[in-house]
């Protein structure tokens, strides 16, 4: 029983490895990008709007409203990043319903990459909003003795994001694997359902936490 999809290797050349995580990630990216391109080829604002366009509009406006409710006043700037996080994690967890599929978010590499990109994005959005000096000064904010604690809290938030998503998805797939060897008929089905639910919740949590961190970094004093 594999701990993560990193262990299933398709092809290896020296230190370059093509494992199940990479293949699944690229397949998901391909499906989502090509699907979105096909749906948005002929956008209509009146008359007959296709169902797929309506579905995409619902998704985009819901994410935009959520970003606005957290406290970011120009959601268009952050919609690309946060929407991508949510959609990638949600689609990769929902596709667990397909047989023989292992979610790439069950590998610590994928979740660490997502968490590191959130960390970098928080710094970049903060600097864009407050300037380099202003943003770095915010680390000294309550008093300058808090500087090491602020830095530690930044790093531990990133670490917690990665481990939370990895732990939830990995334990979901592993529980189903273990149950399949014990009680094969009904229980793995319920655990698979629970896995789908937690996958969606974790996607939402990841993107909302990223939004909250960005909002905290871009909030100017006196607002």
């Amino acid at each position, binding site marked *: *029983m594999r*701990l993560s999809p990193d262990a299933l290797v398709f092809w290896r050349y020296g230190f370059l490895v093509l494992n199940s995580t990479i293949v699944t990630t690229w397949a998901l990216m391909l499906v989502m990008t090509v699907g979105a391109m096909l749906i948005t080829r002929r956008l209509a604002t009146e008359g007959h709007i296709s169902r797929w366009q309506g579905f995409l509009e619902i998704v985009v406006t819901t994410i935009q409203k959520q970003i606005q*409710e957290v406290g970011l006043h120009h959601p268009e700037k952050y919609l690309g990043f946060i929407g991508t996080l949510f959609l990638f994690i949600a689609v990769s967890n929902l596709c667990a319903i397909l047989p023989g599929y292992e979610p790439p978010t069950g590998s610590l590499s994928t979740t660490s990459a997502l968490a590191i990109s959130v960390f970098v994005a928080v710094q970049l959005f903060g600097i864009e909003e407050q300037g380099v000096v202003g943003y770095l000064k915010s680390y000294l904010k309550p008093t300058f003795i808090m500087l090491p604690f602020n830095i530690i809290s930044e790093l531990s938030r990133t670490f*917690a994001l990665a*481990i*939370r998503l*990895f*732990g*939830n998805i*990995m*334990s979901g797939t*592993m529980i189903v694997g273990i149950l399949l060897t014990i009680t094969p008929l009904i229980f793995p089905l319920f655990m698979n359902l629970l896995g789908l639910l937690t996958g969606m*919740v*974790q996607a*939402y*949590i990841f993107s*909302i*936490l990223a939004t*909250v961190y960005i909002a905290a970094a871009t909030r100017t004093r006196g607002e």
Partner: protein
Amino acid sequence: MESTSLIAIVSIITAGVTIAVGSIAPALGEGRAVSTALSSLAQQPDAATTITRTLFVGLAMIESIAIYCLVISMILIFANPFWNHVIAQATGK
């Protein structure tokens, strides 16, 4: 007792104790969080969406403590580096 069996015994016991003790506190915390959220929903039903969203975010943060313990347990059982080391030594001999 040789090192192989000692590592196996301690790993198994630790894995069980980790997840057992590590899920007590998050469960209690989540219970308190949900009960407070329910009473505030009863007091202010208009803020239902805000309360529900904040509740889910808070529950995920609390849950992640239990997830850390679960990850340690899983690593001890399925990807134990000390066990792999002694097994490699034993088969290499």
